[in-house]
């Protein structure tokens, strides 16, 4: 059984889906393909199944919030980090999503292991994944309001206590009596 030679992922995807690729970024030895969100599941299946690419392993799904800089084509960027164990290389697929109703189709049909990372992004960033089988919150309690990893969500810290403000803070700090 012979193994097909490694193809250049950028060229292969551009040839198969010419309208899908919006940008290609290469930094620090890594390749990022910026895609049109509508084509994401198709491109994901393509890079997983095509001989010569075989990105069979989904390492991670992570999301970034570009508030307040807004220096990208959308407020949210969702990155899919892929790994090809055969050719020992990584690829990143990125989609930019708008601020109101950010949503993209789920890739759980391509990699079932995307279930929990997508749930985490849904919970912490508020990005919707269409067709996801289980949209409950995962890390925060079920009745939590808001999406903590967004940049406009406050860190929620308690003011550090020094001797000049400790009484003021202790007045409002809950303390269990029994």
């Amino acid at each position, binding site marked *: 059984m012979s193994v097909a030679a490694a193809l250049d992922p950028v060229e292969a995807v551009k040839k198969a889906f010419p309208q899908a690729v919006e940008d290609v970024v290469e930094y620090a030895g890594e390749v990022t393909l910026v895609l049109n969100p509508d084509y994401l599941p198709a491109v994901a299946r393509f890079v997983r199944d095509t001989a010569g690419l075989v990105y069979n392993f989904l*390492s*991670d799904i992570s999301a970034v919030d570009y508030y307040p800089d807004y220096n990208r084509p959308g407020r949210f960027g969702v990155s899919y980090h892929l790994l090809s164990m055969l050719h020992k290389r990584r690829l990143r697929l990125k989609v930019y999503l708008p601020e109101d109703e950010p949503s993209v189709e789920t890739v759980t049909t391509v*990699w079932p292991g995307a279930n929990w990372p997508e749930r985490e992004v849904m919970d912490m960033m508020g990005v919707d994944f269409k067709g996801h089988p289980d949209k409950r919150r995962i890390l925060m309690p079920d009745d939590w309001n808001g999406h903590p*990893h967004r940049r406009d969500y406050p860190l929620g810290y308690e003011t550090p206590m020094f001797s000049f403000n400790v009484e003021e803070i202790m007045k409002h700090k809950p303390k269990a009596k029994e």
Partner: protein
Amino acid sequence: MAVDASYEKESEMQEWQGALDELKGLVSERAMTGETMLLNMGPHHPSTHGVLRLLLELDGEEVVTCIPDVGFLHTGIEKNIESKTYEKAVTLTDRMDYLAPMSNNMAYCLAVEKLVGLEVPKRAQIMRVICMEMTRLNSHLVWLGTHAIDMGAMSVFLYAFREREMLLKMFETLSGQRLMGSYIRPGGLWRDFPPEFMPQLEHFLDIFPGRVDDYEKLLTNNPLWIDRTQGIGVIEPEKALAWGITGPSLRGSGVAWDIRKSMPYSSYDEFEFNVPVGEHGDVYDRFYVRILEMRESVKILKQAVKKLPAKGPFRSENRKFVPPPRAELGQSMEAVIHHFKLWTEGFAAPDQEVFSAIESPRGEIGVYIHGTGGNKPRRVHFKTPSFIHIGALPIMTHGHMIADLVAIVGSVDVVLGDCDR
């Protein structure tokens, strides 16, 4: 109490029905009719390793499906890091996977070095390998102790923690702290190995293989152990890859993927070691892979001790990113300026994103950093193996009994701090 008993019962029923409705897609049809029982294996349980809640659907003693509920240890580390500079965030990364703190440090530091383009000197790379392998031994010892004690083998727990005390003493010699040393920093290490460290390490490496033989004598051919672990929790290799499983759990299923061998980082390509691979993908294979990994780690450590140059830099000399040693501050004005700039403001990283992964004792830890161009990151995301593995628990536990569930959760080696961050 003459309360309207029927009203109370009705609202309780409604609450229960509402809770059942939420689970409609997740549990089988038989749970809706009451044919199977829903049991809560709550966040406080002696055998779940940490605060993990499993909602079990049971048909008698057999688990039909289990729904994990995590987040009881979610500390918001990723959001906290966004308000710290790159160097100060290292202390927060220690506390995610608290059994292998230096591997979290390493993953984060590798990503930062990739982002800013910082070179690590060769000697520092070998020192990092020593730290990483000691951490691997540390983590595997705790795994062995807790896994064995969950299945009833209590003496293994005490033996494992006895060895661990030796390792913790060495960590204390290195960084001043038994756990959570934050010893690995961007650019290299915090300080050079103290002179008393090497004799301790060599003594440890002399006696440790004998101790691993002790553990094997207790467990490997023990008929009780074999009965409880062989054929339990089998994952086929294709399923394991599709569900994102990495590390010893993947190697137990027969996939020979180890990032240290396949995509080596920090001079791992210069060390000779084998990657143990299992056959059946059951609990016994995952256990044995880790025992063999402990022996391989000892091999790597012995080679590293021989390879380590006696003198040389332990951290990069690039003063734009690495603070100068205190002795230099009295002699050079630039050193003072760098020191001031780095400790007040920190170094700046470009508005780009990187992803870098290492092989931690649990699996693949991936760190995704997106800079802003300023001194604080825009987003740091940790892809932690325990998170993915707990997500894959339903496929591993289908059809097993509750006692086997305990064995499976132990063999996958989940740490809830790693899962929830």
